[in-house]
């Protein structure tokens, strides 16, 4: 596919044309933070964002997603994909999306996710500013970003736009793109490479070393109880994670008490009820009863359980969990480096 250059002063007209003809989701400022939201104008777009509060997975896997609509005993599925362009996704989130793509595709394909995903064009963008807890340069290095349709990189005087798929190539028609020169391409490459050195946090070991050691420490109860000692079981670390995809399924009546929906809601394995089964008579069995059990499950899931399926850990180093954790105990770098130093 082709690599293009777009001059700085042509960028807003490119975005305007794209927004006019397609639904475009991009990073926008929300007070002092950033979120992915529908763009109304090019000025809203903040490609200089560090990280968004929630990951972009919500575009395919919304916080609440209707699965089945019912009216008495009549029912129908709710798959209703909307064409959209997800613009300005950092490479760590591209990696995460590729992971959820895989997990929703394997075995029983879930078209409630996949239809939304297929209807989306993803334009990745270079990281212009690194967030305070990021460690994307040192995690899962064996897995590169893939599944995106184009990659846009800010360089001096404009943007280098690499079209990767036909969907990515189709965006070029909205702007005055010209062929990128070799020097522009190499400037883009070094802009992307240089950011890797700016992560404030760093894992000191390889993915396989980590997977091995973390797994071996499964029964190190003391370690997990200590790590989770201050955990509020709030699930914030799960909710902001780009690779978490656990959900609950609930039915909701409409006011008429006849019609309603069956929906899935984001769930969190750190919450107390996540693995709890009612036995009746007020009794329950909780298969991960202690905070340590649940904290361990999250770290295991990120560092070991899914590695075989994903080719690397289910963590991309965005640092969102570290920032979101009320007690500041969720930071995978701290937890994993500590486990690696355990006997």
């Amino acid at each position, binding site marked *: 596919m082709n690599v293009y250059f777009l001059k700085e002063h042509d960028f807003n007209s490119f975005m305007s044309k794209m927004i006019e003809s397609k639904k475009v989701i991009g990073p926008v400022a929300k007070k002092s933070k950033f979120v992915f939201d529908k763009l109304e104008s090019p000025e809203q777009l903040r490609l200089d964002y560090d990280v968004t509060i929630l990951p972009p997975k919500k575009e395919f896997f919304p916080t609440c997603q209707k699965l089945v609509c019912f009216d008495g005993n009549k029912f129908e599925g*709710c798959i209703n994909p909307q064409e959209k362009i997800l613009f300005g996704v950092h490479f760590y989130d591209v990696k995460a999306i590729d992971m959820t793509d895989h997990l929703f595709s394997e075995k029983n394909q879930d078209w409630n996710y996949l*239809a939304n995903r297929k209807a989306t064009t993803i334009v990745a963008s270079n990281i212009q500013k690194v967030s305070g807890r990021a460690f994307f340069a040192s995690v899962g290095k064996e897995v590169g970003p893939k599944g995106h349709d184009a990659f846009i990189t800010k360089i001096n005087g404009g943007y280098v736009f690499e079209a990767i798929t036909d969907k990515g190539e189709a965006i070029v028609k909205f702007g005055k793109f010209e062929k990128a020169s070799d020097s522009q391409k190499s400037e883009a490459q070094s802009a992307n490479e240089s950011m890797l050195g700016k992560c404030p946090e760093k894992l000191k070991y390889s993915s396989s070393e980590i997977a091995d050691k973390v797994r071996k420490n499964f029964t190190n109860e003391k370690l997990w109880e200590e790590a989770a000692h201050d955990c509020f079981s709030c699930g914030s670390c799960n909710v902001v994670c780009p690779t978490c995809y656990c959900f609950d399924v609930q039915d909701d009546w409409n006011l008429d008490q006849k019609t309603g929906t069956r929906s899935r809601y984001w769930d969190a394995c750190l919450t107390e009820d996540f693995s709890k089964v009612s036995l009746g008579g007020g009794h329950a069995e909780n298969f991960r009863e202690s905070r340590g059990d649940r904290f361990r499950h999250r770290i295991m899931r990120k560092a070991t359980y899914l590695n075989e399926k994903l080719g690397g850990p289910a963590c991309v180093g965005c640092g969102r969990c570290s920032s979101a954790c009320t007690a500041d105990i969720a930071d995978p770098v701290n937890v994993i480096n500590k486990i690696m130093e355990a006997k």
Partner: protein
Amino acid sequence: MCNCCSSNNHSHNYDEQNIFLPKEAKIVRAVQATATERHFTLRMASGEKMKFDPGQILEVSLFGFGEIPIGLASSPTRENTFDIVIRTVGRVSTAINKLNEGDSLFIRGPLGRGFDLNLLRNHNILVIAGGIGLCPTRSLIQYIMDRRSEFKKFSLFYGAKDPSQQMFLEDLANWRKSNDVDFHETVDRGSDDWKGNTGVITTLFKKSSITPDTKVIICGPPIMFKFVIAELDKIGVARKDVYVDLERRMKCGVGKCGHCQINDKYVCVDGPVFSFDEIQNLEEAI
């Protein structure tokens, strides 16, 4: 226009692939099995026969209340109906247990991995069912009884808390007098008119003679497993010949939602039936 969510364009192109769309089943028989358990016999509303393996599960739902995972409680060798037993516990099960013959339930499935009959045929079989664990194992028990010649000696141990908690009373009466099954039962607490064995389920081992070449199926409360396994170890039954039917919270039944995960296994797709050697080193499993 969809009445419930005001959407104009649900795409029905995906209906065939939508793993969350249930199918309607009609209740052809509903019996109160115990004070808290209700036994339903169902038939698909479409008339089709559901193909399943003993030990597989269904997601059973009632719109507006929700879905719950339930083990199939009858054998695929039986007509074109299938049984489930539901304990009144929460919102969904309470609503379902108010239903009667002619009402509809909605099901997804069969889901998961049931018993591998090829591994069980031509072997001595022992099924150990504690409490409500008799429901999913009944799918296998019926199968064996229906195709008795395909199996060698068949033993069945059943334990309930007290006589009022015993389920499938017709089946129990048949098994007690049948020559096809070496049946033993116990209750934790007897009653005035209880003349059978009293004590935990492992007390039944001395009533039978289980040989080391037996394939053993265990389903019951988690606490039961380790005591039963200890007995089987004494007899010398290999752990690869022991199968357990696990229970977990399952919301999706298709290996996505994460609730039933044990290490890297999902009980809803990799199980609920596991051979014991598969999970004995899997922390959190038992």
